[in-house]
């Protein structure tokens, strides 16, 4: 599809006094509030969405703290004779490394520590710089970062699934048994809230205030 006057300047719906539907792409006058094709809500790309982004992000962060302090897994081996152990997220990673499972340790470390913290930083940064003038190159970088956060956010839930599978599977009575700890719930909530935070962010804000030129003019 071609821009209205391709390859000349890019006109945005907002500049033209219109509002675009984010779920189906149809364009409406700014006075409309619901898309008449798909029924989606029409929201102009302004900083109002950032309130929701910050609120969900704060909720996600609040739940991420107990997720790290409380045990994720409670293991007992040989009826408690070989000891009952409770491991937090970080403790579990250390334990895995201790047993030489470096690959699994790396995956768990990535999914439950690096990705969530990276996500908090990335969303905060995007929300802080949103709406500020950027160069076209910077805008592309930000959009790319947003897409990465949006894609990778769901994958943190993998830790909750691992806990569920281990607890369901390793029920060997006297020999060994694994039970989930309270951190599983707060970790799941933290992941869900940060997903909602990323979904509330309107990527069109990244492009607000850009000079109305297409990418090709700049490169």
């Amino acid at each position, binding site marked *: 599809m071609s821009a209205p006057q391709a390859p000349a300047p890019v006109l945005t719906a907002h500049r*033209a006094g219109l509002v*675009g539907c984010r779920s189906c792409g149809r364009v409406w006058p700014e006075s409309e509030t619901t898309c*008449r094709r798909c029924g989606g809500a029409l929201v102009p790309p302004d900083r109002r969405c950032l309130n929701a982004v910050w609120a969900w992000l704060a909720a996600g962060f609040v739940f991420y703290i107990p997720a790290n302090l409380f045990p994720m897994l409670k293991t007992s081996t040989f009826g408690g004779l070989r000891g009952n152990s409770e491991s937090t997220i970080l403790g579990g990673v250390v334990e895995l490394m201790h047993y030489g499972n470096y*690959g699994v340790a790396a995956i768990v470390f990535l999914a439950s520590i690096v990705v969530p913290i990276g996500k908090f930083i990335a969303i905060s940064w995007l929300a802080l710089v949103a709406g500020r003038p950027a160069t076209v190159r910077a805008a592309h970088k930000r959009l790319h970062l947003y897409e990465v956060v949006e894609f990778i956010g769901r994958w943190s839930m993998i830790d909750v699934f691992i806990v569920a599978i281990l607890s369901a*599977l390793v029920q060997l009575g006297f020999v060994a048994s694994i039970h989930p700890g309270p951190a599983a719930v707060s970790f799941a909530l933290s992941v869900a809230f940060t997903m909602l935070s990323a979904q509330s962010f309107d990527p069109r804000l990244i492009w607000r205030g850009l000079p109305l030129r297409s990418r090709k003019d700049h490169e």
Partner: protein
Amino acid sequence: MQTEGEYDLSTGAGLIACPRCDALHVERELEPGETARCVRCNTVLASPRAGAFTRIIALSLASLVLMVGAVFFPFLEISRMGFGNETSLFGVALAFSHGALMPLTVAVLGMIVGLPVLRAVLLVYTLLPLSRNRAPYAHAVPAFRLSEALRPWSMAEIFVIGTAIALVKVAGLANISLGPAFWAFCGLILVNAASNAFTSATTIWDAIEDAGMATDGREIVPETRA
């Protein structure tokens, strides 16, 4: 009704806006196999594929069949020193059924079983009449919108990778055998991935509209049918 290539900057008719960067484009009916990308941020705007609807329906039905297998067949089995345990998919979700963890059972079941099933049903409901060139069923519009909204929360593929990691974790501790449900779940992931590759939301919205639903007076009807 809108003629192809005409647009009106005061009402927005005949235009589409990029969902990621808000750039305006003139709407055009694409040939199957073509892909429309935003001129500014390169986001895919539409990518109709020949026979996509029939394929999505077939893949959705396949995923429902596989899901039945995944739920009712044994999932994993473990044994060590004469002690054994086997679990089904429900068993995995019920791992959280003690005390304060209870709500997580519902959430896990929803993310790995409920939402994938619901999305498959909604897609079949939306696309079945469209694939036969008939008018869509009632409420096809909210049905498809719901299916798109649930997409990020349907986490079957994440669950399978999680299973693989959990298995590596306990591999040294005990003997594990994989049940038919595990393989059904793996198949489900492939089927869902194929289905997603064929799904282009804009194309489906266009098709719902061309078939006579939720008409806002702005649809571009292909010339063969106009």
